[in-house]
């Protein structure tokens, strides 16, 4: 048995309790003890001297695209040869775990099996990466695709059932429906809804029948309500949720997740000029209105106890991989979360959305040892999680992906 003792750390356990000083013992892939560790049990363990640094769960990104590769050319995602594309996707997976993210939920793959292959390679230990729930290409109806070259088209209930079956056959963990437009396309409006109730119902029913969940690109008010009416599991964006939708979300808060991808809106509105999309253009097509409407709705969802997770559609040129923790800053500064609430969303709720609430997302005995050692206090300054140099160690399954450094280790006697 291998064991590691984190000694004198500030334990941010993601139960909601304030961080407290103590020790954490990891045995093999699990957390064995938290707080006060029996010295006899820790005998022979490798010791990491925490020196008051924060030990917390690895983070979760609930809206991940390994195969979005920091490109400003979205159509290029479809034309890029699969060999190069897989290599770039593998790099994305590594960037996630390098950034302290140990849980990711795939929100669509640019080609059929990129996500699935990356997930399997991570699970086999062939490449570094977070725990991953893989997706396939997003399903859109004719005339409703955001990027045609990376879309799986289906129409009508029978078409949806067939598309879902084909994706499940590829080995995906969840299905993605692209239900509304996106202003940057220039043709597909965010407030337009392209799916019908019958199509959503068919896709959800078929996926659930096979034990798979469904997520959706759903910006319009109608699409959010359509998701909820039909039991769709994970709603992305939800920018224009109206009062009726808020009531429905509150009623469904025990089973639905919302992941707004808020950084996409912020960065597309203010920070994309270097890639040819200046703020004036973004405002003209509606991103300022969408951001302000989304903030208002998300603050209300938060007030009502809806489960909102960070996960920001990273992987576009102006929302590059590796900047994932900026979402947590937005949760605090824009959505009114306390830093603790933002961290709970990225950890404890991460365990829930990964379908392993009793194993992932908390520093508790029996949980899987997916941990990060942070040089700083994320409760005092949530932005510290954006600085990879301040994440001194990263552990997944009880093994260090990032070693804490020789100067901090010894052997317990």
């Amino acid at each position: 048995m291998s064991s590691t003792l984190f000694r004198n750390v500030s334990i941010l356990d993601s139960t909601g309790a304030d961080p407290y000083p103590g020790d954490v013992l990891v045995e093999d892939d699990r957390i064995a003890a938290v707080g006060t560790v029996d010295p006899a049990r820790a005998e022979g363990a490798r010791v990491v001297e925490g020196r008051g640094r924060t030990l917390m769960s690895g983070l979760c990104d609930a809206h991940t695209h390994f195969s979005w590769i920091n490109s400003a050319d979205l159509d290029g995602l479809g034309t890029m040869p699969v060999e190069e594309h897989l290599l770039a996707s593998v790099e994305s997976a590594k960037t996630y775990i390098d950034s302290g993210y140990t849980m990711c939920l795939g929100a669509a793959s640019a080609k059929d099996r990129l996500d699935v292959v990356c997930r399997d390679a991570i699970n086999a230990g062939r490449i570094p990466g977070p725990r991953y729930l893989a997706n396939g290409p997003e399903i859109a109806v004719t005339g409703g695709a955001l990027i045609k070259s990376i879309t799986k088209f289906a129409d009508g209930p029978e078409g949806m059932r067939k598309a879902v079956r084909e994706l499940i056959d590829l080995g995906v963990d969840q299905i993605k429906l692209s239900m509304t437009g996106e202003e940057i396309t220039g043709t597909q409006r965010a407030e337009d809804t392209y799916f019908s109730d019958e199509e959503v119902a068919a896709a959800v029913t078929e996926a659930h029948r096979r034990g798979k969940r469904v997520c959706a690109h759903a910006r319009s008010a109608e699409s959010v309500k359509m998701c909820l009416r039909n039991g769709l599991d994970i709603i992305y964006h939800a920018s224009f949720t109206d009062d009726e939708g808020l009531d429905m979300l509150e009623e469904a808060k025990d089973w639905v997740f919302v992941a707004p991808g808020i950084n996409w809106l912020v960065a597309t509105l203010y920070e994309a000029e270097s890639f040819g999309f200046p703020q004036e253009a973004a405002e003209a097509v509606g991103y300022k209105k969408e951001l302000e409407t989304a903030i208002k709705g998300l603050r209300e969802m938060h007030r009502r106890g809806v489960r909102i997770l960070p996960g920001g559609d990273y992987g576009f040129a102006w929302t590059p991989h590796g900047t994932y923790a900026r979402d947590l800053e937005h949760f605090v500064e824009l959505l009114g979360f306390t830093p603790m609430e933002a961290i709970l969303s990225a950890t404890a709720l991460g365990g829930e959305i990964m379908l392993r609430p009793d194993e992932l997302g908390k520093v508790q005995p029996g949980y899987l040892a997916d941990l990060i050692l942070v040089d700083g206090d994320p409760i005092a300054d949530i932005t510290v999680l954006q600085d990879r140099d301040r994440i001194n160690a990263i552990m997944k399954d009880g093994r260090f992906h990032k070693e804490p450094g020789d100067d901090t280790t010894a052997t317990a006697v």
Partner: protein
Amino acid sequence: MTLLICRTCPRYDMRATGTFGAVMSAAVAASGVAVRGVQCLGGCPEHGVVAVDGPGKTRVRFTGLDVGDADAVVRAARAHDASASGSPGDWVVPVELMERISAVTYKRLPL
């Protein structure tokens, strides 16, 4: 005060990536300005990117910098920190950086 420095500039040059962040961080190290090394600030076509930011304050990004701009960057960080909103106009942007602003990110809330 927080100065964000890109740690991957120039992002698209795999042999040189990261050099800007290392050099700029070293150049401002003695200033006392709090530096946050971030993966990328999204101003890549004009590499050499930093931003000044702070809780509740407007983030202002500068691009196309090199180590010779370190002194101006420090002055910008201090002036931004001393301002109430962080928005340009509320503080004096060093003249050397006036043309280097490539993004102004407001943390505005709906009315």
